[in-house]
């Protein structure tokens, strides 16, 4: 006869409520683990979608995600010429926050060369960008419809396609536009600013007495050309041919002034160890705290449940029940509570994880490990009750 099941059946209201409470707690632990994994997945999403071997960024920076990086677009051609490089493509990254339907609308805008790589890897709906200007592919998480227009900078951009789960390291969903559009959005000044800049240049040049009017005119054109240029990118990504020596290619690019070639591996380290490490540690710590709380709660529940059953246990001992009968009853209850709570927690997260604002990544290993931890916690927690139960004297069954 399974005493644990019978006790649970008799006190099912209390058991269900307790288990649901514990299940919610385990659900939070599972979601914390999912957020922990999601942070890594988010941080690496763009790296994985671009699939570059080398990220060339501004010298002495950890760009383009961890730090600001600006390099000239035309360096792409020079990188393409490096032995071992099969293709190189310029990329632009910027976080945009605009007002949409009366609410802040935040996303991560990626500009890419339509003839290069680094654009959306999958199109879930609509099509990819075909025109050089004013078309956009948006991530599904942006919840924006094909055909919808968004005003960015000086122009409206039409969503022509929907892509998958690419997000920035901050978790903002990504949208893609052509490189030229992204550069315009990021660097192009409005007409007032241009007029103001030109007036400043005029005023400065007017102060140089030695310039002839023709020299001043050409100098002004040159200066304006530089200040109004948008041909700047945040990184140039390169892919190597099979068998190419990564270190040699890096070393060669390093020799040029003003650039830093970061390998994909280094970029992963910068993103995971630098940008999200503290957040990961924080979440990891929360998980540990929640597991400790779960252990304390299970111990308390099992202990109080054992206290409630002192007379029952004493009676069982008096009628000759073996210790294994009593240990089994307590241990099985504890394990049942843990297993059912785990199933509740897991089910809850499985039903809701896609609705979380941040990405939740549920990995089989994490789920199995947590299940193991829950079993260990339940087993260890039940020792408190078992210890108490084994100390109960059969004589306690006597008397009123």
């Amino acid at each position, binding site marked *: *006869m399974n005493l644990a099941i019978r006790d649970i059946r008799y006190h099912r209201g209390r058991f269900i409520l307790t288990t649901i409470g514990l299940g919610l707690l385990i659900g939070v632990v599972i979601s914390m683990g999912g957020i922990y994994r999601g942070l890594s997945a988010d941080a690496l999403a763009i790296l994985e979608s671009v699939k570059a071997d080398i990220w060339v960024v501004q010298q002495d920076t950890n760009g383009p995600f961890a730090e600001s990086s600006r390099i000239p677009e035309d360096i792409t051609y020079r990188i393409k010429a490096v032995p071992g490089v099969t293709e190189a493509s310029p990329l632009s990254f910027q976080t945009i926050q605009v007002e949409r339907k009366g609410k802040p609308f935040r996303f991560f805008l990626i500009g890419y060369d339509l003839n290069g790589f680094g654009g959306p890897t999958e199109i879930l709906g609509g099509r990819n960008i075909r025109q050089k200007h004013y078309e956009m592919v948006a991530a599904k998480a942006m919840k924006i419809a094909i055909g919808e227009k968004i005003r960015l900078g000086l122009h409206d951009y039409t969503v022509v396609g929907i892509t998958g789960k690419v997000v920035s390291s901050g978790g903002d969903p990504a949208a893609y536009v052509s490189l030229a559009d992204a550069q315009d959005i990021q660097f192009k000044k409005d007409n007032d600013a241009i007029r103001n800049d030109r007036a400043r240049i005029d005023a400065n040049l007017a102060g140089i007495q030695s310039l002839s009017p023709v020299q001043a005119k050409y100098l002004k054109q040159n200066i304006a050309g530089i200040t109004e240029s948008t041909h700047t990118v945040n990184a140039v990504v390169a892919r190597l041919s099979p068998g190419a020596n990564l270190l040699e290619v890096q070393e060669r690019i390093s020799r040029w002034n003003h650039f830093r070639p970061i390998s994909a591996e280094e970029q992963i380290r910068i993103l995971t160890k630098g940008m999200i490490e503290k957040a990961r540690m924080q979440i990891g710590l929360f998980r540990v705290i929640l597991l400790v709380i779960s252990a304390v709660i299970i111990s308390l529940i099992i202990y109080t449940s054992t206290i409630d059953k002192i007379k*029952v246990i004493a009676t*069982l001992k*008096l*009628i*000759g029940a073996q210790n294994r009968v009593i240990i089994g009853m307590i241990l099985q209850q504890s394990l049942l509570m843990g297993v059912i709570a785990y199933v509740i927690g897991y089910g809850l997260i499985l039903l809701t994880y896609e609705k979380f604002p941040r990405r939740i990544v549920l990995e089989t290993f994490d789920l199995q490990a947590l299940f193991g931890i829950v079993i260990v916690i339940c087993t260890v927690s039940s020792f408190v009750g078992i210890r108490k139960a084994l100390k109960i004297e*059969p004589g306690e069954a*006597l008397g*009123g």
Partner: protein
Amino acid sequence: MYAIEVENLTKIYGKGDTAVTAIADASLQVKPGELVAILGPSGSGKTTLLTAIGLINEPTRGKVVIDGVTVADEGWLAGLDLKRLRREKLGFIFQAHNLIPFLTAMENVMIALEINHQTRSEAKDRATELLSALNLGHRLNNYPMSLSGGEAQRVAIARALANKPKVILADEPTAALDTENGKNVMVLLKKLAVGNHSAVLVVTHDHRMVEGFDRIFNVRDGRIVS
């Protein structure tokens, strides 16, 4: 052969100046089929005597023999499995019936049988048989909470009888019952003592019930006085 033999049983709690003698030099014998009472006021030592015979409380001195097995002779005998002896030779009836609240009447009887290695079907058959014999055939699946005091005590008696023990020890079995139910329980205990050829030792201070016993041992201040 006696079912219960106690010789010069003494139980002392504590040591030195704080030592308290709960029972001193108690001797008694009970034959199979006898219904015997240990009568005495609260604190007289009657429960101590019962727990020593019930293999719960180790005697300080003296000898205890249950169904021919010497269990104590100046303390428990070495190598004894007290739990097994309790399962096989003793049946307990309590003041407050002590039924397990989350088991039905039938399961409360079955548990005693399953603990004693009976199969589930054997235990179920025996529990049904016992409870039916005690007029509880219609209450098999009721939980203790839904049983009356008399019914619950009859379930407790069925549990005590489940393994056909040679000795039944009852601790104030009528204390929580009204006179009529108390008398019914006493009649039942007498019937069982004779019918099962078991020795039934009842500890009580309930003078209402003294009529039904074959013999009565009066205990005062830790000594059997008559």
